[in-house]
């Protein structure tokens, strides 16, 4: 065999020109010789092929026995993953649902599979799962599943740096969420759309979209709709670097939305990021504490705990960082590969910021082992880059560039700190 690979140089075909579910293998590009990644991509492919075949209708309706045989063969392969592996459980659940052969079960299974891939950083696989769900949902008019698929596709495309497609999906999600009066999805879709537009250099477009959203929602929900709009504007302004405007919008969102609204945790994380860039550490910490206590989603709570530690390192407070690291390491022990890798990356960053290079190296190596063991898609290159920065003593990129805070920003910081205290006390 030739020492170089001629096939590697070929441009990947569009989804419509490749065989069904091939898209999942694009997550291997550039790393196709890593056996764990390759094995897991193949498992996702097997599962997707079961889902897509089970979804076939009309003339393409397959024999149920044959689908059952295909599902059993895929289950057998999935069972090769280590016991307790999150991906093994997720794929196995997908296959169980697919064997029900009902459109709702298949769409739900595809959405579950997509969410798992997205979490593990396999963007192309997530896209293929969500596209499968979308297709089934559109064919059988499953509005709830269609809404979730559109939102997820928008998020996945945005994260992969494809703002054009992200915008298309998210605009559809916003329109459908309005029509269905699903304010939870509307808030998420609007926030994603605003951030996508800001990232694509069109913050004005994002502001217009946020201002126009929710027009069809009854007046009785006006406060909540205004809160969702404000949350979107907050994320957009922070992403665009207009920090004080972001804080004002964030404060408005917190005032209008209930603390139980899942979107509030995202607003607090956005606002905390702005506070850090304004050098307002206490306000940022207050927001992180609030998210740690109250966020419904584990990912958000974990992100807040990690940043709560890193912000101490960033402020040059090694004692606080080490104290918080201890808590985080206790939490890491019960996490799966993804959670453990995420925590170790955060601790590696923090240790680099306080020039504790041995600890930083140790955390990053643990992160690398966890990421490789769990076959994570996007974490490995990030960790390798951090390790390379560490060896070059190039931690400047990690340091936040602080802009002096204005009186207005300080006043909002004081309000957030008080809300954080009240909210923490109420939990």
């Amino acid at each position, binding site marked *: 065999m*030739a020492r170089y690979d001629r*096939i590697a140089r070929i441009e990947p075909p569009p989804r419509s020109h490749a065989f069904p579910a091939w898209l999942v*293998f694009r997550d*291997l590009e550039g790393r196709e010789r890593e056996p764990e990644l*390759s094995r897991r991509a*193949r498992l996702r492919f097997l599962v997707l092929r079961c889902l897509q075949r089970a979804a076939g209708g009309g003339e393409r309706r*397959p024999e149920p026995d044959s689908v059952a045989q295909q599902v059993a063969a895929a289950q057998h392969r999935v069972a090769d993953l280590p016991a307790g592996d999150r991906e093994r459980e997720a794929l196995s659940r997908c296959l169980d649902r697919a064997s029900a052969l009902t459109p709702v079960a298949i769409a739900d299974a595809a959405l579950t599979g997509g969410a798992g891939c997205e979490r593990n950083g396999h963007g192309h696989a997530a896209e293929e799962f969500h596209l499968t769900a979308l297709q089934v949902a559109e064919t059988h008019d499953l509005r709830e599943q269609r809404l979730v698929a559109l939102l997820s596709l928008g998020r996945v495309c945005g994260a992969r740096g494809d703002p054009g497609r992200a915008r298309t999906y998210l605009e559809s999600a916003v329109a459908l969420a309005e029509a269905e009066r699903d304010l939870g999805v509307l808030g998420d879709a609007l926030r994603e759309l605003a951030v996508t537009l800001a990232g694509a250099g069109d913050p004005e477009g994002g502001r217009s979209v946020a201002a126009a959203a929710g027009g069809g929602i009854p007046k009785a929900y006006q406060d909540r709709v205004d809160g969702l709009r404000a949350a979107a504007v907050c994320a957009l302004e922070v992403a665009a670097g207009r920090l004080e405007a972001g804080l004002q919008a964030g404060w408005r969102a917190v005032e209008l939305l209930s603390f139980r609204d899942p979107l509030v945790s995202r607003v607090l994380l956005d606002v905390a990021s702005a506070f850090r860039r304004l050098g307002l550490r206490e306000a940022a910490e207050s927001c992180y504490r609030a998210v740690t206590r109250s966020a419904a989603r584990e990912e958000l709570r974990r992100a807040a705990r990690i940043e709560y530690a890193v912000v101490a390192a960033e402020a040059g407070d090694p004692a606080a960082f080490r104290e918080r690291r201890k808590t985080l390491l206790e939490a890491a022990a019960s996490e799966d590969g993804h959670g453990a890798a995420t925590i170790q990356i955060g601790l590696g960053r923090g240790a680099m910021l306080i020039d504790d290079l041995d600890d930083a190296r140790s955390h990053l190596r643990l992160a690398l082992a966890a990421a490789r063991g769990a076959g994570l898609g996007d974490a490995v290159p990030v960790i390798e880059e951090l390790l390379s920065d560490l060896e070059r003593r190039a931690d400047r990129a990690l340091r936040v560039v602080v802009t002096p805070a204005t009186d207005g920003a300080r006043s909002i910081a004081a309000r957030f700190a008080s809300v954080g205290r009240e909210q923490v006390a109420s939990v």
Partner: protein
Amino acid sequence: MALIAALLPKEADRLALGAAAPGHRTAWARNWRDLDQLVKREPVVAVVADLHAERGKDGVLRVYRFSRRYPLTPILVWGHLTGRDLLRLGKAGATDVVLDEEMANVGLVAERVADATGDSLADEVDRRLAAVVGPEARELVRLAGTRIPAGVQVPDLASSHGVSVSTLERRCEQWGLPTPGHLLLWLRILYGLHWLLEPGRSVESVGRQLGYSSGAAFRRAIKVTVGGRPTPLRNRQGLLTALDAFIAACPGDPAAVGEGR
């Protein structure tokens, strides 16, 4: 009954393909080179190949070369395929795959073979004919089309339709189709031009596959039916021109078209 060219060295794989595609004929290739020659020589509609058929050869690269030479001939890749193999196969232009854990699933393999042996030209002809003739006539043309690669003649067509040659002639007239002989002539030309869209095929090889004594005889047939020489017709536009000419050559049956709708 379509002709499939297969490169499957293992007996178990051959049996699995045979069980999944009982209605098709199979021509067995000994190696990748032989597979290429088979497709060039015979009226093959699809290819099934074990990626690891030849030790030491990069099967994916062979698939890539094949799909460049025969872009309209589906290639179904078979065997123990890793994630890396599958990534590369998608780039190389494989039409679909059958993984080792799927081979025992006869229903699944049959579906993949059916997809690969689907006739896109027959669909295109049928779509155009829907505007000029009724459903019975379209059914006859589809049946004739599927048997062109097998070298169907008028008596075979009549017999497979369950009627005598003279009855078939009368029906063609009633249904607004050309005579059976002309119908088969047109279909041979259309299939010939369709195959000639593939760079790996020559006028000589396609002429022989269609039952002409030589490439020159095939050229003459094209000149008589479509007009002009085949080489300028070796593109998508040439095939569309020939399709238009075929539809124009059908007398048509407006009443049956109305009924068919």
